[in-house]
């Protein structure tokens, strides 16, 4: 079984067009969630980077907002990568919850080719744009789609099916998604505050990320995708199980696969949406997993819940933090309001950060855990 390493990556959110800009913004307490004209963190290319807006005007091609964002972040990741997208030993994996759903909106100036409302057609458009000869793998697994894509890529590489994987995730804010979460009364009127005692809902955000994985150990202290697992609460299709049992299974299975114990974990990048129930459930799961003393953070207070992108971009930012031996802060957090005993901080920490556990949960009762480990 081949090991799977992180080779390169890129992130596009309302905070910035690349990882460094996003990372620095997070450390400085940036927040792209604008709740005045829109309850969410939208990407505005011209606002975050005039260059990007000019470079990616795509005047000649009929392309959707999501496709544009995906292409930008994949190009950025590939620009400093030695992986060739046209190589048959490279596979593309695309994670999205709603794809080009804005195609169903009553009014939409970006109406793309109607076929690309189908997620696999959109994925094929993206992988073909980069000249990849393989049919891409498309994952639609609610809010853990990004982590499921990483889990699937790990299987494909370690089983020797492919040498490299370009794992991308993205979603846009649409009337469809906004209406839906609002109908569930899940959206906060202010930027979300994961794990905080005053939290009252999530903020939607849009983002894209591209994570390039490979079986080649190319650099010192390269980050490994060491272990992963998914599970189901088997409880309710939209509410998380109160005892965190499903998430606990995913956490323990991913740590087992990574051959690590709780004391080895140096940081936890949680799902932390800012809803009363999700954050409560997660805190209980972390305590039950004996992870109470490990620094845990959620990034959703900085750019919102980015759905199909979340698992990818939050993993990437956590991996970037591991390389810099920084433990990221939890956005929007002031005082804990969960019953699980966990260690959340609003401040970042300079500390050896060799093993990060990334978790996620989603509609349908699904959960996932991925362990990223520095190869030392």
């Amino acid at each position: 079984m081949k090991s799977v390493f992180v080779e390169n990556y890129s992130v596009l959110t309302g905070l910035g067009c690349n990882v460094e800009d996003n990372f620095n913004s997070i450390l400085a307490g940036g927040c792209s969630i604008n709740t005045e004209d829109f309850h969410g963190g939208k990407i505005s290319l011209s606002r975050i980077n005039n260059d990007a807006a000019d470079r990616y005007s795509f005047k000649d091609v009929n392309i959707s907002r999501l496709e544009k964002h995906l292409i930008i972040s994949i190009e950025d990741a590939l620009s400093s990568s030695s992986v060739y997208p046209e190589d048959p030993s490279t596979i593309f994996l695309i994670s999205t919850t709603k794809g080009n759903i804005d195609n169903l909106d009553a009014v939409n100036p970006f109406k793309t080719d109607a076929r690309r409302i189908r997620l696999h057609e959109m994925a094929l458009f993206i992988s073909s744009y980069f000249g990849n000869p393989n049919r891409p793998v498309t994952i639609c697994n609610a809010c853990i789609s990004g982590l499921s894509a990483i889990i699937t890529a790990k299987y494909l590489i370690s089983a020797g099916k492919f040498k490299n994987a370009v794992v991308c995730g993205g979603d846009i804010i649409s009337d469809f998604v906004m209406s839906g979460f609002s109908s569930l009364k899940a959206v906060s009127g202010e930027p979300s505050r994961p794990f905080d005692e005053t939290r009252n809902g999530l903020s939607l955000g849009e983002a894209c990320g591209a994570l390039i994985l490979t079986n080649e150990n190319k650099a010192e202290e390269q980050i490994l995708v060491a272990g992963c697992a998914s599970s189901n609460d088997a409880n309710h299709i939209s509410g998380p199980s109160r005892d965190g049992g499903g998430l606990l299974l995913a956490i323990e299975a991913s740590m087992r696969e990574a051959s690590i114990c709780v004391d080895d974990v140096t940081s936890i990048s949680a799902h932390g949406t800012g809803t009363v129930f999700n954050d409560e459930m997660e805190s209980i799961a972390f305590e039950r997993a004996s992870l109470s003393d490990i620094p845990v953070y959620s990034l959703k207070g900085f750019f919102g819940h980015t759905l199909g992108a979340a698992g990818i971009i939050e993993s990437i930012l956590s991996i970037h933090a591991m390389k810099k031996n920084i433990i990221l802060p939890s956005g929007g957090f002031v005082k804990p309001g969960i019953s699980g005993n966990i260690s959340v901080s609003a401040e970042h920490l300079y500390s050896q950060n060799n093993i990060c556990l990334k978790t996620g949960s989603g509609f349908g009762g699904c959960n996932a855990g991925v362990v990223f480990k520095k190869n030392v």
Partner: protein
Amino acid sequence: MEDLIVKLKGEIIEQLNFEDLTVDDIDTDAPLFGPDGLGLDSIDALELILILEKKYQIKITEADDGRSILKSVRTMSDFIMKKKA
């Protein structure tokens, strides 16, 4: 009042997809939530609020006690009567 109760029961059956229930099967005063009544969950609660908005143009605000209003068919119809008066 009885007409409203019958109408409301019909709307609950339709909106919440209770295929095997008839209006006569729903006890007006039985709790809608919990094991003793229809066993509704949190999504059903939101759908009941949607019935009030869609069919009766009544919005439940932060000031209203949602739990008491949605306790039974009786409490729901009392609330509708009060708001319409």
